[in-house]
């Protein structure tokens, strides 16, 4: 695309958004800003879950369609840990470690034996997601579970300008998402394992040839990716509710986030999550019956003009 076309498209896409923002601010600035915060905090949750998804895909080319099930598993583990111990932080740890352990078992016992068979791995994850979802429903039941926010985060934050009050817990999602993003960036760019993962994303064969035990690396990455899904599950267990079907919702969100942002790119996941989170919440606030259509239109536009997503690279 040359410069003229870039200008053309940024006007075609940007102008309606600017007009909408101006109108919405003039019409009801409180609704607009609250929706903005809701969008960003939802994006933060989406980012945490999708980052694990994209990390696993980037290194192993494994589209883990059981990622949503791991999210739900983490949420339930967190819920029952919090019930037993009363500690939110312990719940977070339990969600992360539990999902990571299941992910590790999946990688070591199944995926290790079908390396390079992308399609078959994906089919296996579909089978696993059905089985995990049904076992969870068997043990826990189909009723809605909702976790309480920890005492120091419950209730609204008052006396804010314009928007007046906003849920403390919801606001807390934003720094958590940013912290996870920074930690992940640090891990990938400043540690030895992260260096290996990046090298593996670029060229798996070469990494293995230079003496790195790729199997261990794969297992570690899969565990971290699955753990992030479980971590997101505990966070989402307070804000959203846990019920069979949520796994599919978060899986869809992860898919769209990484399609928009680009597969295998953590920065892309942050970008995609922001776009999806904002689009979803604004859609729900301003045009409830068609909110899904917005998401879909964005997906179609991105695929039409950037088939690999904003920051994706050729596979």
């Amino acid at each position: 695309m040359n410069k003229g076309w870039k200008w053309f498209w940024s006007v075609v896409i940007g102008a309606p958004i600017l007009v909408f923002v101006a109108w919405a601010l003039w019409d009801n600035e409180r609704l607009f800003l609250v929706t903005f915060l809701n969008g960003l905090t939802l994006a933060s949750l989406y980012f945490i879950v999708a980052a694990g998804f994209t990390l696993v895909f980037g290194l192993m080319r494994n589209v883990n369609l059981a990622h949503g099930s791991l999210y739900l598993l983490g949420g339930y583990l967190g819920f029952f840990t919090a019930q037993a111990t009363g500690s939110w932080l312990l719940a977070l740890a339990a969600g992360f470690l539990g999902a990571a352990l299941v992910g590790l078992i999946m990688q070591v016992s199944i995926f290790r034996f079908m390396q390079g068979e992308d399609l078959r791995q994906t089919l296996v994850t579909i089978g696993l997601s059905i089985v995990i979802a049904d076992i969870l429903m068997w043990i826990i039941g189909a009723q809605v579970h909702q976790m309480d926010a920890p005492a120091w985060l419950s209730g609204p934050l008052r006396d804010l300008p314009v928007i007046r009050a906003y849920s403390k817990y919801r606001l807390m999602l934003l720094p958590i998402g940013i912290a996870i993003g920074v930690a992940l960036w640090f891990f990938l760019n400043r540690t030895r394992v992260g260096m290996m993962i990046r090298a593996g994303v670029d060229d798996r064969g070469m990494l293995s040839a230079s003496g790195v035990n790729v199997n261990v690396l794969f297992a570690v990455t899969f565990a971290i990716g699955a753990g992030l899904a479980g971590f997101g599950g505990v966070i989402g267990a307070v804000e959203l509710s846990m019920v069979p079907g949520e796994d599919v919702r978060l899986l869809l969100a992860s898919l769209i986030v990484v399609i928009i942002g680009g597969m295998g790119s953590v920065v892309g996941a942050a970008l995609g999550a922001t776009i999806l989170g904002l689009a979803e919440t604004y859609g729900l606030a301003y045009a409830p019956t068609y909110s899904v259509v917005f998401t879909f239109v964005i997906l179609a536009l991105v695929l039409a003009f950037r088939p690999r997503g904003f920051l994706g690279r050729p596979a």
Partner: protein
Amino acid sequence: MLNRGQAAVALSLPTLPANRGLSLISGIRARHVAVLVSLLAFPWFATPFFTFQIGAQSLALGLIALSLTFLGGYGGMVSLAQMTVAGIAGYGVAIFGAAASADTAISLGWPWWLGVLVAIAIATACAAFIGWLSVRTEGIYTIMITLAVGVAFYYLCLQNYSVFNGFQGFQRVHAPSVLGVNLRDPLPFYYLALFWSLAGYFFVKYLLRAPFGIALQGIRDNPRRMNSLGFNVTAHRVAAYAVAGVIAAVGGVLLVWYNGLIGPGSVGTSWLINILIIAVLGGMRHPIGPFLGAVVFVLLQTFAIDLIDRERFNLVIGGVFLVIVLFSPDGLLGWWAGIKSKVSTPRGGVR
């Protein structure tokens, strides 16, 4: 390597059209005749329950899965949105025609044949659009994008009340009566489903040996080479989605008449994946696979209640699917081929 060789051999086939008609007739074996006769005679021996619930449902689901087998097995594009295409056709039948479903103000009440034709046309157009979106990416990306499209359509049906009637969907969408024959009855409906399934089966069989099908298989095996040979890869792939869309749409019309209703649940994730399960269960190497898979699926679905708790059907079907994917990637057909080769070479040496 083997695949490329096969493609090269296959590529030379269409240049000998004179042999084709002959080979079609001489290719008929006793087992083909036996299967056809038993399919035709089936409802005369079976109870109406078996004819309708097992027979007709398997055929309708098999037809939808056939579209996936065509796309996935021969085009190399595993699409999870085939049930979405079928669902669009089903919704179309409910929205345009279906005077019987007078419980909503949405149905337009067109003559049934017009409604069905328009529904199939719209579903095909949507399939081509989904194809156009997803062929821009390759391999496993296709699964993700089609899954995203399918789930997005599910949420659209769920949330939209002005066109799709939201959570309720449409009830009492029944097959019409034609020339005094009520297609709702088990026997006529079975033959209707059988006719369209056979039509779909032979259509796919024919297409696979036509130049278009050969080119498609070449593109599956090596898109770059086909591109440099002058084939338009993208156009062939989108066309394959459209062809599969027609098959899925016909299956969708049959399925909505079978169920008598359509709603978000009919196009939900579990059904998107069920179609994949049916296709993989049967085997994606031959167009008979999806029908085989559909029979097994429907039998499991119907009789799993007797084996274990009704609620645990997903566990059974998910487990069966896992076992097949883990141990027999070519599905039941692969199993069959394995047994056959073992029988024909008893000492288990050379194949």
